[in-house]
């Protein structure tokens, strides 16, 4: 529990020089005497150039964890460090090398895609911004939409525009919250390929919160499963499948979410 010795889960993957280092992180909300442990003593470390999936049901603590890594939320206790910078205290050392995309955060709807990318490009001090916008738009199939107001894009187009904003500064650390939500399967597959390519070219560290198990299985070399603010498991997808005796991550997720995780693990052994 937060602030109390209860290190139930030890991180499974030792990382020497982690890009993201989460150490006994806790977030506790107190409202009218009721205490909610949104994130409860979690630890993990992400190596440079890796894609890690953060799985969990609604209210598991994924978004809270990401918000603390971004410096948007102050931990109650513990540490979130990005490239050695303590968040949120030292955030300005690293924020220009990070970015984030989430369906819970919009870009100004009245501005065109080009205008939005120009504003964010300037905020991130992107060099050769005009060319960078054209290149990012081309990569994400947005070239024909650059001069359209962001609010008039379809849901899928909006997701791609948000992704373009998240990639405008070529971040070394990319945090994604359901990046392919509301995309058709073809476009979602195309976005996943793009993310794989981006990670490979940039050696970027990606933390991806998703409910799409196929996506996590395909993209992530490591999966962290959260439930009620705690880490329930943390391993490579194939290790998880063996550990729970399942054929796909969806079944693993359901085992954990429905409290059958322990039983499945024992049965698999």
């Amino acid at each position, binding site marked *: 529990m937060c602030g109390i010795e209860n290190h139930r889960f030890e991180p499974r993957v030792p990382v020497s020089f982690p890009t993201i280092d989460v150490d006994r992180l806790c977030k506790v909300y107190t409202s009218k005497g009721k205490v909610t442990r949104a994130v409860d003593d979690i630890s993990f470390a992400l190596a440079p150039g890796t894609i890690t999936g953060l799985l969990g049901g609604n209210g598991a603590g994924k978004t809270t964890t990401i918000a603390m890594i971004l410096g948007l939320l102050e931990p109650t206790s513990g540490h979130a460090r990005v490239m050695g910078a303590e968040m949120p205290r030292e955030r300005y050392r690293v924020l220009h090398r990070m970015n*984030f995309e989430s369906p819970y*955060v*919009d870009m100004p709807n009245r501005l065109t895609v080009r205008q939005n990318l120009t504003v964010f490009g300037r905020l991130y001090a992107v060099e050769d911004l005009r060319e960078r916008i054209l290149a990012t738009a081309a990569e994400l199939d947005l070239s024909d939409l650059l001069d359209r107001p962001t609010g008039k894009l379809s849901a899928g187009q909006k997701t791609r525009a948000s992704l373009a904003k998240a990639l405008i500064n070529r971040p070394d650390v990319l945090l994604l919250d359901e990046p392919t939500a509301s995309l058709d399967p073809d476009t979602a597959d195309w976005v996943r390929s793009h993310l794989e390519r981006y990670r490979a070219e940039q050696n970027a560290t990606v933390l991806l919160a998703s409910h799409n198990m196929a996506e996590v299985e395909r993209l992530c070399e490591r999966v962290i499963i959260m439930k009620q603010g705690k880490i329930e498991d943390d391993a490579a997808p194939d290790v998880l499948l063996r550990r729970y005796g399942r054929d796909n991550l969806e079944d693993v997720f359901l085992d954990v979410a429905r409290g059958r995780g322990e039983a499945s693990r024992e049965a698999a052994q």
Partner: protein
Amino acid sequence: MSAAPTSSLTLSVQRINAMVLRYLYLLRSSWPRVLDLIYWPAVQLFVWGFLQFYVAQNSGFFARAAGMFIGAVLLWDILFRGQLGFSVSFLEEMWSRNLANLMFSPLRPFEFVAALMVMSIVRLAIGMVPVTILAIFFFGFNLYSFGFALAAFFLNLILTSWSVGIVVSGVVMRNGLGAETLAWTVMFVLMPLTCVYYPVSVLPAWLQGIAWALPPTYVFEGMRALVLEHTFRADLMLAAFALNLVYFAIAVAVFLALLRSARRIGSLLQSGE
């Protein structure tokens, strides 16, 4: 990738420009927003201008004090619209659910505030310049004839409006859009206390102390001294400026405290109520 200075006190003109550009793009894309900047100050001008005509015809005092009401309403609009220009630009981020994007970008709080201050002046200029020209045309009142005094009035009023705008934005950021009404109404608390249309001596003695603690009171007294006695009261302007510096520093401290609190309770990721 360029290296970024690490302090939250570092100011980048490029990032301030980026935010100003963002608001200019918005204004350019929305004519109702521009119309809204002009329409209400114009309505106010005509109401008070014609009232001034009427009372001037029936009172020797007001005949001598030509322009006192119009001057007051124009200066009040600088105060009110200055704060609104600041707060509404901030509210645009809440309405468009863009605040989190800014808060995890390299944009520093002081840069954000600086951009909002610039936009407050831009929005004020869009609204007030046409109205001051209308005042010359319809009522023969030339605000610009105040000369240097106008600059002193403007500086003091805009500083007060920014202080109020900074606190209001902090409250909305911390408490969500449920606190939005403050942006539209808070300045009206100052209207009776700062003696926009009447001298401080009209107030009960105990209220006069409160009135003199508010910088705009000095501006409106100064404006009346200029119109009625043709005297520029530099002492009043200096006192207002000193008070404004104190209030501005308090407002920035309150904003930073509210930002820290928002970071603690998690309201930066939400833009709802």
